[in-house]
């Protein structure tokens, strides 16, 4: 019984993770009043250097993910390889709405010291999509 219930839960949690990905995410931002989105604005944000906290080291998206998104990045803290951010090179990028939001939240806080606005996130998604290797 317990095993069957566990399997049911695993299936349920897997089912909720299937979503239409970036386009749906962008539509969500538009409903919040953001847009139109511009990949060049996203690129400027990507390479912008920030000081998330006082006395903290300067940080940018490019520190870990690089500026050529078809190439792998390097995690600043662990030194581990980060799969390329370009959806062309790494097909599972920008396919899962839940993961998109999770990593925007986590990494915007780390890099900028705050969450990104829907406008910023839309610009960044377009920038990542435009980096077709």
């Amino acid at each position, binding site marked *: *019984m*317990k095993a069957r219930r*566990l399997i049911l*839960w*695993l299936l349920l*949690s897997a089912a909720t993770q299937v979503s239409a990905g970036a386009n749906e995410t962008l539509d969500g931002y538009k409903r919040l009043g953001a847009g139109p989105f511009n990949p060049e604005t996203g690129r400027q944000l990507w390479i912008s250097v920030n000081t998330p906290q006082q006395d903290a080291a300067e940080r940018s998206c490019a520190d870990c993910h690089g500026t050529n998104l078809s190439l792998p990045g390097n*995690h600043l*803290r*662990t030194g*581990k*390889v*980060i*799969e390329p951010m370009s959806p062309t090179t790494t097909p599972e990028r920008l396919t899962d709405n839940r993961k998109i939001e999770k990593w925007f939240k*986590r990494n915007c*806080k780390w890099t900028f010291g705050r969450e990104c606005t829907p406008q910023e996130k839309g610009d960044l998604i377009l920038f990542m999509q435009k980096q077709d290797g």
Partner: protein
Amino acid sequence: MSTPLTEQKIKVWDLPVRLFHWLLASCFLIAYVTEDDFITLHTYAGYTIIGLVVFRLIWGFAGSQHARFNDFTHPPKTVMVYLKQVIRFRADRFVGHNPAGGAMVFALLISLSLAILSGLVAYGAEQSSGPLAGLMATAPLAIGKAAEEVHEFFADFTLVLVLLHLVGVAIASIQHRENLVRAMITGRKQAPHSSIHQRQRK
């Protein structure tokens, strides 16, 4: 309401069991709410839960009568039969954990342990932090991400178990006309006597 008989209270939950229970509930709530928004507080809550779970495993053998695992370990069939009795409002009263409550203790301990383990792997592999940082130093980030998914699943699964636990406590409190929440605070419950305790009925 208060005949001399109903005043017959006996000690059921020892102090360590009660402290364990409320500390675990608090730490789980803190860990669940903070997620990685307050990762330091989240990890302290998690480390405390490790200590609490380890303590409970020891206390399951060393504790007082109703704290010990052999007091509430029943075969799955007994648990199912008991649940059916609960549905028909004909469940026996147990002074310690009833069979369903006993099964819930094990389910919670297992689910929490898997949440802890996957959390430590995720923290070590993704952030090079925590006690498994060294072990996970060369593990790819994908391992950490996968562990994080497992971690989130078992955190949610534990929350579901907690909600079922609360439902069970409410049902048992109503069916046996006793305040089980207060019993987990004071440790005391009404002594079993014939008017309530009808185990020989079926």
